[in-house]
């Protein structure tokens, strides 16, 4: 949904008349089944989701609901068993691994619960990492990494290693890393799961700022108050995605 005054929030694409551009991501009847020997687990049972450019959407749900599986598919870390997934109009649901790697590199910025910063590298070296795989020249990489760190308020910490930064600062470094490629989608998986309440607030404010700058954000969390910060809240339950009850538009 692109308009804040939309009458309702739902997982289906908005009315056709309102869709002037292709949504950033559009999942149609996405299913995912895992088979481990004789046991077959149906993690996703036909998920429909459409996220327009500039939207801030949260996906919450209890553990085992399939939200991690959904995050992996949205993040192009995995492909659906059934259904289609279009990222900016391009069908990525049947792509090969190296094509997916390029999609992840160019279009998606990840923020993880565990930060996943490389401990031996300084903040700016961590931030430039996606650009290394994107084939960006060295000098430009440093420039863009420093700019991204400045955007998250860490201009004075660029040469610090993750171990020398607080948890909140580390998560801000990883937000900078997600921003550095200027991706079409920022995908945050439990970004506040390892943070104290102050740092949580800090990071959530950062997401709100990014949303205010027009970034498209998908936030996966199991915490209701975190989910409530998104402009649209959805809930995963038993492999099915639906709009959150009482969600504000």
């Amino acid at each position, binding site marked *: 949904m692109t308009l804040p005054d939309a009458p309702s929030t739902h997982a289906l694409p908005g009315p056709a008349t309102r869709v002037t551009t292709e949504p950033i991501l559009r999942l149609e009847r996405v299913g995912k089944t895992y088979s481990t020997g004789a046991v077959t687990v149906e993690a996703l049972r036909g998920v429909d989701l459409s996220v327009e450019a500039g939207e801030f959407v949260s996906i919450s749900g209890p553990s085992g609901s399939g939200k991690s599986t959904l995050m*992996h598919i949205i*993040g192009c*870390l*995995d492909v659906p068993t059934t259904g289609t997934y279009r990222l900016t109009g391009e069908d990525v649901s049947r792509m090969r*691994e*190296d094509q997916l*790697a*390029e999609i*992840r*590199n*160019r279009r998606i910025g*990840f923020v*993880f619960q*565990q930060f*996943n910063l*490389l401990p*031996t*590298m300084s903040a700016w070296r961590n931030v430039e*990492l*996606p650009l*290394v*795989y*994107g*084939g960006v020249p060295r000098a430009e990489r440093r420039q863009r990494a420093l700019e991204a760190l400045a955007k998250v308020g860490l201009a004075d910490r660029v040469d610090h290693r993750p171990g020398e930064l607080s948890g909140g600062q580390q998560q801000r470094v990883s937000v900078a*890393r997600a921003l550095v490629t200027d991706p079409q989608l920022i995908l945050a998986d439990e970004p506040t799961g390892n943070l104290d309440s102050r740092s949580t607030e800090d990071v959530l404010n950062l997401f709100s700022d990014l949303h205010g700058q027009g970034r498209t954000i998908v936030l996966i969390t199991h915490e209701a108050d975190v989910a409530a910060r998104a402009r649209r809240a959805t809930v995963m339950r038993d492999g099915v995605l639906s709009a959150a009850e009482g969600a504000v538009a």
Partner: protein
Amino acid sequence: MTWLETLWTAVDAIRTRRMRSALTMLGILIGIAAVMLTVGLGQGAQQSVAAQIDKLGSNLLIVSAGSTTSLSGLRGGRGSATTLTAADAAMLGDREVAPDIAAVAPSSQTSSTLVGNGTNWTTSVIGSTPSWLSVRARSIASGRFFTTQELNTSEPVVVLGAETASDIFGARGAVGQSVTIGSQPFTVIGVLATVGSTVGGDQDDLAIVPMTTYAASISPSSGTSVSSIYLEARSSARLSAAYQEADNALLTAHGVNATTADFSLNSQQSIVATATTTARTLTVLLAGIAAISLLVGGIGVMNIMLVSVTERIREIGLRKALGATPGAILRQFLTEASLLGVAGGLLGIALGVVGAMVLPSVLRQPVTVSTTAALAALVISLVIGIVAGVYPATRAARLSPIDALRSE
């Protein structure tokens, strides 16, 4: 990701784990140094053996007496039989019989004690003819060699090797002094120029007397038999002709054929070939053992790379999530393994070169280190690195980013 980026990432990873990387390299280092030194030692030995055999004389053929077989079946060594005689030597010296043989020197030898100058010294005492000097390509340092006249009259004269002379007479001149061999006093008439040791033993520690004197007073039991006859061909081109002539003449004279021959005939070349083959076999054996240590070093690299992949599983997951293709991950780990191999190889070559400079003075053996060997060592260490890296790198490349990110 460019190759240079990959290289720097690998260098970073190696630098981060300094101790472990150093220990891994040590395995390759020791292996490369061991291979280089054993091969160098072998090549040095082959060269020195060839050089030593050259000192035996030029265009040389050696006839050795056959071996004896006792009634119990015990076979003596070559030269133990008394099948060669002074008459054989005389026959081979006949221009009619063997036109390509320039000189003949029959020779017998035994170990005996020389007493003189208030001391004694046990050495090889050789009985031969004046032509011995030229056939064996020797020269006189002081005094003179014995003459045909002295040979004919069984004079008690002796020519000493340089070392023998200095062992008995020290710095004093030996020429003109007297030594007792067995119970017979001999006059020292000359001292040979030094040549160093050869495959035939120390060529500077010997005493040489006229063959007739040898038969009369040093080894009376030998009679007219000799243990070997040295033949000198007219030129290196006539060597094989000389060989044929000597072989045919001796077979005819002894009434035997090639299978029942009671003598053996060897050319200098065949001795060189035999000796270098022996040295080469030893080299191959030692280098084989050294190669096993190199293999163990390679397994060390593989082992550490596997540990590294397991340990860095989250890093791999993250890199994949951020856009590293399976190929990029494969290259990263392969580069890391190759780098460990090459770094170990370079250090191994350095150690090998230092060893090649130090070892000769310790072992009294020449060590040859060639550029080819060094380059081969470098290539081998690179190949070991790559081979050892393939399996761990493939495992890393195949990791699913989800599983890798999820692991603790």
